């Protein structure tokens, strides 16, 4: 390349506040093969991009270096801009002088300026040997996989299915509906989930484009965007779902009683069970861990649906996109020893209280405390149980507790008008449409007593759960002789999320929440193309936000499916067959199964559509035959030479 242009971004003061950009320009403009160098306040803005397009034409540039932020942010932006001006996009390289220079060297501007010059020079050296590349075209399968059958997964599946594409919806429990199905009513509108969600559950089960796999898990995922190969494990339910009529005669006769997890162990189910009456599909499942294998159910079953010989079934499907919507768990009660969690029957968690409030719950909506089934007259709600508590490993706010506690206190007051509800809180976070008004209404109209402070201890004594707390607004210690204590435990990612994430090759954060590609601008996508996130699997959010994100993720999938073909990054490995000795080191190093030694020719060959361009093969190759396009070893060495020079 003989005609290189360099564009140095100020990034407002992010770069220019530390680095002397004018000095950088003056040094770089005299660098060999550079014909033009220029600075601009925001290169990524439209005027900045236009500037670059104009200069490419004006100076007939054959290569461009943009010195700005990390390539993960704007490499694509500038490659597209270059393409618009007729330059091959792979003749644009980014010199990262923000994350690698101005930010870490904030207090040493001179060093920063020198380092920025060095990085730009090294990038120019690498650019000089860049090849012009064309994106690889790959066909795609226009079917989607949605993991998780809660409100997020259902909404995403319905939107994609309505768009005309097939969806495989995989849910690990025997019914769809998820957490929302367990709720009594929803804030702030007080809709009951049975009214607003069960129609969606039915729609999912009846939609011609949705293949519903309940009591199933994702076993294996291979491939890449547009072409994922997925193995679904349909766990043995020992009931033929096609034959089961859902009459329930089997459960009536089953002798084995098991705590019902749908009612959060506040009721009993049988070893053969349907989680709740409105479950979809409305069929029974045998929980083999608890089954006595007496087989009386088998004799009772008229349609002969029960089959004790059933085994796990594996189904292979091909999909083009995946949405992960695996939801959340609550921090186990055993973590709250100071509150007697897991020890006192009348200290319960918020979902248990939802079940006590729900008309479909174990008490038919009557609020009765677990220990003696009495109506509790004093109920204490403890917010931030575990949330915002780094001692318990959760530094974040779980976001929805302030609102659902207000709702629960209101529903309690409506159920027990002469009862008193107390809410201990740190802050009230009610930042949604109609949310603050709702909390005010609960405080003022329903006379719920809000106490700003933490509870230090809960002690059970003579049928009373004594709550010791403080009210920091009056500066007084508070003692409440409560009948029932409801904790709002921290929300945690679903169990098994890390395992699933590693199968999907997507990342999680330190807590296990799924990591989005960019928190602000790409919150629905993961760093792995073709895999999207919906709902609480990313981070705690309410139903409104969950449904919005689910529809958003579905929109992303539909946009992907509207393409003729998928473009694959051409930065892939190549093998120089004149050098390759067929040793197979590259094959062992490749995590994607993209490079293999051809047994006939004894030469390594690259499957370009599988290759992610990670260069593991190139590092492993003893002869230098395997190289990644535009990251060739000689290019890297050219960079090192500049960077290693003395200051």
């Amino acid at each position, binding site marked *: 390349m003989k005609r290189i242009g360099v564009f140095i971004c100020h990034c407002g003061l992010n770069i220019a506040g530390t680095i002397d950009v004018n000095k950088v320009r003056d040094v770089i403009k005299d660098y060999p093969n550079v014909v033009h160098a220029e600075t601009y306040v925001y290169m990524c803005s439209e005027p900045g991009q236009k500037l670059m397009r104009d200069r490419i034409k004006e100076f007939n540039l054959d290569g461009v270096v943009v010195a700005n932020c990390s390539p993960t942010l704007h490499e694509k932006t500038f490659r597209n801009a270059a393409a618009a001006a007729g330059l091959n996009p792979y003749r644009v390289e980014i010199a990262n002088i923000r994350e690698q220079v101005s930010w870490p060297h904030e207090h040493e501007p001179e060093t920063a300026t020198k380092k920025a010059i060095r990085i730009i020079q090294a990038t120019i050296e690498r650019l000089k040997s860049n090849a012009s590349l064309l994106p690889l075209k790959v066909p795609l399968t226009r079917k989607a996989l949605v993991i998780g059958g809660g409100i997020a997964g259902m909404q995403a599946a319905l939107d994609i299915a309505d768009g005309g594409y097939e969806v495989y919806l995989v849910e690990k429990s025997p019914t769809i509906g998820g957490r929302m199905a367990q709720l009594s009513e929803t804030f702030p509108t007080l809709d009951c989930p049975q009214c607003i969600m069960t129609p969606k559950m039915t729609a999912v089960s009846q939609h011609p484009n949705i293949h519903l796999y309940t009591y199933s898990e994702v076993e294996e995922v291979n491939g890449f965007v547009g072409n994922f190969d997925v193995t679904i494990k349909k766990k043995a339910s020992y009931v033929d779902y096609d034959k089961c009529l859902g009459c329930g005669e089997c459960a009536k006769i089953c002798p084995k009683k098991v705590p019902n997890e749908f009612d959060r162990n506040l009721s009993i189910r049988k070893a053969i069970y349907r989680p709740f009456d409105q479950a979809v599909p409305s069929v029974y499942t045998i929980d083999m861990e608890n089954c006595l294998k007496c087989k009386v159910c088998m004799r009772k079953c008229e349609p002969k649906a029960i089959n004790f010989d059933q085994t796990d079934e594996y189904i292979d499907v091909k999909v083009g996109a995946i949405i992960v919507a695996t939801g959340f768990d609550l921090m186990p009660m055993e973590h709250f*020893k*100071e509150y*007697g969690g897991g020890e006192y029957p009348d200290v319960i968690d918020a979902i248990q209280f939802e079940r006590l409030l729900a008309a479909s719950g174990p008490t038919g909506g009557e609020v009765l405390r677990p220990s003696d089934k009495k109506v509790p007259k004093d109920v204490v709600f403890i917010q931030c149980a575990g949330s915002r508590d780094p*001692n318990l490993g959760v530094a974040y706010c779980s976001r929805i507790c302030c609102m659902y506690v207000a709702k629960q206190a209101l529903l309690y007051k409506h159920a027990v008008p002469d009862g008193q509800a107390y809410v201990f809180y740190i802050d009230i976070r009610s930042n949604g449409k109609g949310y603050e008004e709702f909390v005010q209404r609960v405080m003022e109209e329903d006379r719920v007593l809000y106490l700003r402070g933490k509870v230090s*201890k*809960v*002690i*059970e*004594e003579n049928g009373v759960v004594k709550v010791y707390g403080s009210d920091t607004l009056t500066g007084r210690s508070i003692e409440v002789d409560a009948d029932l204590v409801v904790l709002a435990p921290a929300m945690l990612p679903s169990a098994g999320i890390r395992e699933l994430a590693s199968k999907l090759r997507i990342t999680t954060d330190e807590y296990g929440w799924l990591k989005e590609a960019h928190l602000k601008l790409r919150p629905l996508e993961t760093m792995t193309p073709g895999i999207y996130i919906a709902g609480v699997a990313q981070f705690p959010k309410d139903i409104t936000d969950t449904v919005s994100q689910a529809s958003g993720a579905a929109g992303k999938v539909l946009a992907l499916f509207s393409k003729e073909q998928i473009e694959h990054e051409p930065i892939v490995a190549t093998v120089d067959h004149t050098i390759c000795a067929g040793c197979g080191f590259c094959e062992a190093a490749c995590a994607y199964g993209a490079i293999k030694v051809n047994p006939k020719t004894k030469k390594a060959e690259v499957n370009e559509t599988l290759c992610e361009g990670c260069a593991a093969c190139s590092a492993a190759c003893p002869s230098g035959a395997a190289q990644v396009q535009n990251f060739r070893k000689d290019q890297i060495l050219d960079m090192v030479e500049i960077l290693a020079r003395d200051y």
Partner: protein
Amino acid sequence: MELAYYPGCTVKSTAKNFEISAIASAKVLDIEFIELPRWTCCGTVFSLASDDVMHQVAPIRNLLRVQEMKKDRVVTLCSMCYNTLKRSNLLVKKNKEVLDKINNYMYEEPEKYQAGVEVVHFLEVLDQDVGFEKIKQFVKKPLKGLKVVPYYGCTLLRPRDVGIDDAESPTIMEKLLKALGAEVINDPMKTECCGAYHTVERKHIIKERTYKIISSAVARGGEALVLSCPLCDYNLDKFQMDVAREHPGFHPIPVFYFTQLMALAFGLDESALGLEYNYTDPKPLLLEKNLLGAGSE
């Protein structure tokens, strides 16, 4: 086993019963306490001000004494001494700058403190070095029928990185007392505050704390409280008489150091118990349970 031993001020004065019984029962387990030469105040309360290095000198100087003894561990009895020494030690282990500053300040000392000493509480030694199963073998006079409530207070358990057990629901003393044959009663008040240094100026707080903690223990069937901190002992034992005057129906119960019950269960002579230093006389209870005097075995 020989262990460097840091006593601290209270076990030499108001809490002599703690030290006497600890040394005697340790001997039964073949543990010899070797008292630090020239020990000073532990520092009493760990200073939380990050630039207040001066208040770390006392604890670190004591740890330097341990280093001079060529010992890598020092055992304490008093929970407060344990807490202060352990936290100061942790601070200099993590922060070399503070360590250097303290060493420079102590320039007259022939050695520099290398932060290589570990601070342990006697309960930890019993748990980890001896083991409660083994302790059972030394019990000659099981504390049968004695209903005891363990009480931890704060300094043995908090903050988390120096706590010897779970801060909210500790069980180490329960395990020991069960090994001694006592009937152990769990009381959720066992980690409540005893009132600590309010005992100097605001005695009403101590009385209120004592009333609550002892009443809770009694309500759950407790006949005696067991603890390991001389300050807790002072507050929760000495103040019971005052509480009884203010609350008709409140009857004081004995408060023991865990080591006293060890010495008792090991069948040691009454002189090893130091019962005369207890504020509430425990003899009537022990006689009633047939654990003291002639014909007790």
